[in-house]
């Protein structure tokens, strides 16, 4: 029966093909169609704001210290009541991440005392040169919420004296 053996194999293979034609489709037609990412997906970083529009980032550079890829560069400056970017005394005047170095580990998120830096859903990143891979603060910062005002803001003296928001119970 040596002659028949290939035919049997062929029939088996074709059957698999035929069967899969009636199965549910798994391929997505990217980029026309995009799959939603999982809740814990780690994509492009976003710098968050409070509802009043002030930036959460206080320029502490702890994210930069935590980053295993040494991808983050932060430089701080001082707020004043007239020119205020964030609550407290200090804000990030420079915030850069080299996205070619970033390994999307999310350590920066964990290190941040104000939950300012968050890895978002955006994963469509292309660069045509190395310089373009260094994203700056204006590229990370999220749009001003509806109820807030853009930064810098002019605020009353003594209104925002705490840099790090008070956590009621740090364990929850």
């Amino acid at each position: 029966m040596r002659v028949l053996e290939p035919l049997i194999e062929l029939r088996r293979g074709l059957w698999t093909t035929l069967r899969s034609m009636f199965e549910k489709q798994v391929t997505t037609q990217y980029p026309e169609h995009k799959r939603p990412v999982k809740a814990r997906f780690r994509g492009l970083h976003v710098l968050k704001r409070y509802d009043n529009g002030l930036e959460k980032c206080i320029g502490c550079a702890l994210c930069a210290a935590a980053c295993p890829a040494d991808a983050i560069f932060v430089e701080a400056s001082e707020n004043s009541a007239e020119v205020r970017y964030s609550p407290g005394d200090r804000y990030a005047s420079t915030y850069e991440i080299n996205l070619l170095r970033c390994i999307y580990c999310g350590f920066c998120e964990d290190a941040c005392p104000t939950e300012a830096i968050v890895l978002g859903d955006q994963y469509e990143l292309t660069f045509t040169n190395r310089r373009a891979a260094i994203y700056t603060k204006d590229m990370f910062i999220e749009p001003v919420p509806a109820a807030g005002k853009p930064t810098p803001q002019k605020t009353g003296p003594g209104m925002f004296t705490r840099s790090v928001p008070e956590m009621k119970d740090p364990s929850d």
Partner: protein
Amino acid sequence: MTKQVTLTIDGQQVAVSEGTLIVNAAKQIGIDIPVFCYHPKMEPVGMCRQCLVEVGRPVVDRATGQVVMEDGKPKIQFGAKLETACTTPVSDGMVVLTASEKAKANQREILEFLLTSHPLDCPVCDKGGECPLQNLTLAHGAPASRFIYDEKQHADKRVPLGDLIWLDRERCIQCARCIRFQDEIAGESVLAFYQRGRATDIITNSEPGFDSIFSGNTTDICPVGALTTADFRFGARPWEMKAAASICSQCPVGCNVTLNTRREAKSGGKVVLKRVMPRQNEAVNEIWICDKGRFAHHFTENEHRLATPLARKDGKLALVSWDKALGLVAGKLADAKGEAVVLASGRLSNEDLFNLKQLADGLGGEALLYTQMGGGELTTAYGVPAGTNFAEMGIGTTILVVASDLYNEAPIWYLRLKQAAERGATLILANARETKLEKYSQFVVRYSYGDEAETICGLAKKAHVGEAITSAENLVVLYGSDGLGLDGSSALAAACAELVKSRAGKPNNGLIGVWPRANDQGAWELGFKPVADLKAVFQKANVVYIAGADPFGDNPELTSRIPHHASRIPQHASRSTHPAPFIIVQELFLTETAKLADVILPAQAVTEREGSFTSGERRAQRFYPAVPARGQSRADFVITAQIAAEFGLELEGRFAARVMDKMAATVKTFAGISYRELAETTEQWPIVGRGDLYYGGTTYENKQGLGVILALSPSPTGRGARGEGKPLRPDEDHWLAVPVTRLYDLGITVATSALLKARTGGAHILLHPDSAQKLGLAAGEQVELNGNRLEVRLDPTVPVMVALVPRSMGVPIAGPMVAKIKAA
């Protein structure tokens, strides 16, 4: 030698001298007892209770006086309560437990208390990363607090104590280190506690606030981020900065410092200097620096720095290449030969000065030192030899300070002499006016301006004072130029040298010059000669090569010799037949002198290159590059070597270390010294800067060299005493105007540091209130002094009919002069 005491700490036996505190004994064997209020440089106060340990002592039988034995070992009785390791001296047979359950529990609980209202600002706190409270909490703290979070107290977070130091009231843990530093070490009690309990606050009781020139040191020893400097505020996180060892270039003390640098986007991606920190050298600055050294560093990054060579073309300065500039300069120098003059100042390093001197010698020209203070050939001959240390001076040592306001001229020496006096040294201050150090002196010798040398000559014969000088076991004489010019200070140096001559070569004995610049002593060692009559130099020379000096800025009258400023030539000067010299200027900035130059060669700042300075104590110390050089600037010694190479003279122009080798081979006092030797260190006490910033503060440990005191050159080659010249005694209508030195003047280093500049005010003179009254003037009003308009400040320590004119404050003054002063 003091009695040795043996005790056991955590099972380790250690022998220390009697009177040592437990905390220090433990430190010596590498056991770190946590402390906050204790600081090894200050008296213990036992305020914070962080250092609690269990202490046991051998039981002594009252009847026999013998130690009770138990199982062949002395019986140890532990106290019912813990004791503070920072206030308890060791005793024989003592047993200390620093990590027992009881001690640990207490250390943990003290931290819990300290943190009850601490803001936990670490992310935004300038101390975060080098904070004793952080470190100790990590090492000894409890994981959670039992205190109610909502009961945290809040206080002001941004309180300027002065214009240099900011206080965060929430972060302060009331250890009083800052207050004690000001009281005990600086001797300027300007800080205090206010209120009590949880409301305790640090306040300043001076006007202007925190009025001290040592204020920056409190930020180093503050164990939390309560005190931070306005200069650095939020400049970087400590772990982000690189450190380079350096030597402060502001005065002759030669404080060891560490320069912290960082690459910065704000500065266009350049590596910039962020802060200056003290580096421990117990023989020089201990662990302190003054505020000028700490805050006057902005000149390096100033935008007006020269970055390219310039040469005069059609009367204007235009950019040229280095090759062209060097060729031009070398050509002129080679033509001038013996008619060439090198004029340099003590701002340059030993290496620069050595090369300049070699160049001058090679040409047969002169190497002149631009200075208004003389006597360096005497400090070279009778200076303090190796083995000298202010820290060792106490009972038996007499220190004579003549014509020097150390507080302003050499602040760290002021601290060291104050301490020596407190240890029992006899401090004698001789000056025409009262200076700050007098408070600590045993004897004060007052003379009239002009009588300095004469007074010192007669000093040994005076009762009491003379005895203190002649019978002293050790005698150190510091002389300066308060109210003196070149002639006066040279004569004074000669008089002072007579006092120490017989003691030459004995450690802790000798003559020290309080020079106006960091490396004046080095220039003297290398054979530079001071120049009294600059005008004559510019009249005679064909080529003048000026490095690191601004004679035309200091004295605009000199300009009459230079044709580029034809409009400013007074009538009589233009009659001179000799053509104006070709002027080469090697500088950091476009100074008044540079503006007149034919060629300008941009030099590198101290912070950008390698080299060494010789301090007033004649200690050669290395500094290292911290930031990249500005533009195309080159190190001074390199430029000089490159010029020399153009006309075939071979000088070392690549490595500073090799210049030092050459110096060691040819200059007597530098014999045998190498960069390697200068970089050697030994263990220093107190131990600072390692894993335990809580003990000594954020001062850097010295790993880059303690420096070496140069050998003495036994035969003074200089002119020696110059008794000529009667003291100036103006008539009724005239005033005696004398130069004095202010710490914060209008020199380029202060002028480019905004915070300090605010402290200087404008050009002014100081008068006695009575003198001012005679002129019908009140403080703050304007006077005219020889054509300069100045503000009047009143100072009761100024003699009457004398006007003190601060140097580098807008009025040219080289020495004492008779002046006409009238209300403007």
